[in-house]
């Protein structure tokens, strides 16, 4: 499955799509990136006169690339004509640590490694890096994906 195809199957759209491109994907994990444009709506209020990317948005970005895009790929390995119309997706747990802030117009890279995908539950160890390759945040995210 091509990267473009995976992105097209994501169940998000702007202003809540946080995947620009995917770089690598295999049975062990996935990586992708996203640039937070300065015009994004959340900078208007987070914080007052001091735009910083909210941690929940960083977490969402990690989940969209590291769990949902990756989950679509993993499901495509088991199902030839992948039909995601009725796919049920739910975030079930996050455990995240944040190290440095991400400012408007910064590009981040997400690297996700699979811990397990069993009985519809995908759990990954996910890291985010900025353009200087500095660790922005790291943690574990799990979700349920059922066709």
């Amino acid at each position, binding site marked *: 499955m091509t990267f473009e195809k995976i992105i097209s199957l994501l169940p998000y759209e702007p202003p809540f799509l946080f995947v620009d491109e995917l770089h690598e994907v295999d049975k062990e994990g996935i990586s992708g990136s996203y640039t937070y444009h300065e015009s994004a709506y959340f900078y208007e209020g987070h914080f007052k006169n001091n735009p910083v990317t909210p941690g929940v948005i960083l977490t969402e970005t990690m989940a969209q690339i590291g769990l949902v895009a990756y989950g679509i790929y993993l499901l495509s390995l088991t199902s030839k004509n992948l039909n995601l119309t009725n796919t049920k997706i739910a975030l079930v747990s996050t455990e995240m640590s944040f190290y440095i802030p991400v400012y408007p117009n910064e590009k981040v890279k997400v690297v996700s490694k699979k811990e397990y995908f069993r009985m*519809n539950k995908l759990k990954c160890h996910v890291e985010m890096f900025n353009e200087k390759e500095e660790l922005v945040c790291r943690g574990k995210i799990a979700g349920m994906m059922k066709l």
Partner: protein
Amino acid sequence: MTNNETMLSDLKGIIQPYIQNQEAFDNLTEATDFINDLKINSANLVDIVLDVEDKFDIEIDNDSMDRMLNVKAALEVIQEKLSTK
């Protein structure tokens, strides 16, 4: 071969971190239902199954996992998998 009591206490140890109803856990019997009584969510049921696999060194297939909804059924699955090991 692990006897029944040890198996039950091992299982309780595995379940404990995921329970949301302490009272039901304190009064746990074979009939105790993981979801309805202990209020464990389906995502954590998967964690319990994976922990059971590690603890007893067995592999639990999806069909068996679907059956593991209460204490009695979980013990049965563990015994079944141990006996065919």
